[in-house]
């Protein structure tokens, strides 16, 4: 969809080229995902309606949290009659991946701790992946730009889903649930092509860890535990 533009990587380079092009390119790259997330948001709104959440709660949830995985997890746990703490725990586990993601992006954000914390709020899995450049660098403006249309679509989609009752099954019927794994796989293949042996090894270990943990660990844990594969970086020079 895009090749890495100029690498606005390390901060020194980044501050030198602070045009709006990075943001705009990010917005364009984020649009296809915004479309998908809009559809997923409609199904979230419909699901929340069917659970009797009313109009305000699902919309507030989308505006303040903006996390499809966490919101669906809360709906799934509460919907199945689970407790509020189980629902919160599931959402936190699913979103714990933002911790390593945030650490990866951190050196490329701007300003002091408060500013970086605010910029960190724009971390979304697709934006983060879109903004990743080879060698662990990140394009900050690209990430912020890519998040913008997705946020708008997620919020608007939730409103539509709550107000008009669509079928929850439509997302699966249209095959939209594979869009994210397919996208992540495409980015992974790019990483593997440009990376060295350690990149391939850490991906292989992560696959094994995630696959082994899916049957035995609660949702969110396999992805988090698989991040441990990155500790291979301690063993030698990264590619």
């Amino acid at each position, binding site marked *: 969809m895009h090749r890495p533009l100029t690498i606005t990587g390390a901060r020194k380079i980044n501050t030198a080229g602070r045009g709006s092009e990075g943001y705009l390119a990010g917005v364009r790259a984020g649009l296809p995902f915004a479309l998908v997330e809009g559809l997923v948001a409609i199904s979230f709104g419909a699901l929340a309606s069917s659970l009797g959440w009313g109009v305000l709660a699902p919309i507030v949830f989308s505006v303040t949290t903006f996390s499809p995985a*966490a919101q669906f997890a809360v709906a799934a746990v509460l919907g199945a009659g689970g*407790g509020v703490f189980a629902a919160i725990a599931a959402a936190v586990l699913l979103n714990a991946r933002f911790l390593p993601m945030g650490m990866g992006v951190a050196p490329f954000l701007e300003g002091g701790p408060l500013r970086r914390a605010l910029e*960190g709020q724009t971390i979304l899995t697709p934006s983060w992946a879109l903004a990743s450049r080879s060698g662990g660098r990140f394009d900050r403006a690209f990430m912020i730009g890519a998040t913008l249309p997705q946020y708008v679509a997620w919020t608007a989609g939730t409103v539509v889903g709550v107000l008009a009752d669509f079928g929850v099954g439509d997302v699966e019927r249209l095959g939209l649930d594979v869009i994210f794994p397919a996208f992540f796989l495409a980015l992974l293949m790019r990483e593997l092509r440009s990376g060295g042996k350690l990149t391939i090894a850490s991906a292989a270990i992560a696959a094994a860890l995630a696959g082994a943990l899916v049957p035995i660990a609660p949702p969110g844990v396999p992805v988090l535990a698989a*991040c441990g594969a990155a500790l291979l970086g301690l063993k030698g020079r990264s590619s």
Partner: protein
Amino acid sequence: MSPLWVAIVAVTLANAAIKAAGPILAGGRELPPRVNAVIALLTPALLTALVVTETFGGDGHLVLDERALGVGVAAVAVALRAPVLLAVVLAALVTALARLLG
């Protein structure tokens, strides 16, 4: 406050804190090369884990279904140097077709 609102407020706050933690902890200073090497490998590790869990993850077990077919087609497309967007659309199409016929 109803359990639903407790969950909404708690998840919102936790989510914001998690997203803020990385940038506060790891930004603004040069990290040791070894730490940078680990962070660089986080990308492939995370991407792989997301692909595995979202393609094969079922309700508490691994499943092989139409999703694997769609994602597999995307992999072939990317290997043949197709644009990412095309690969993603193909994945959805193939999955939807397989479900329709299956």
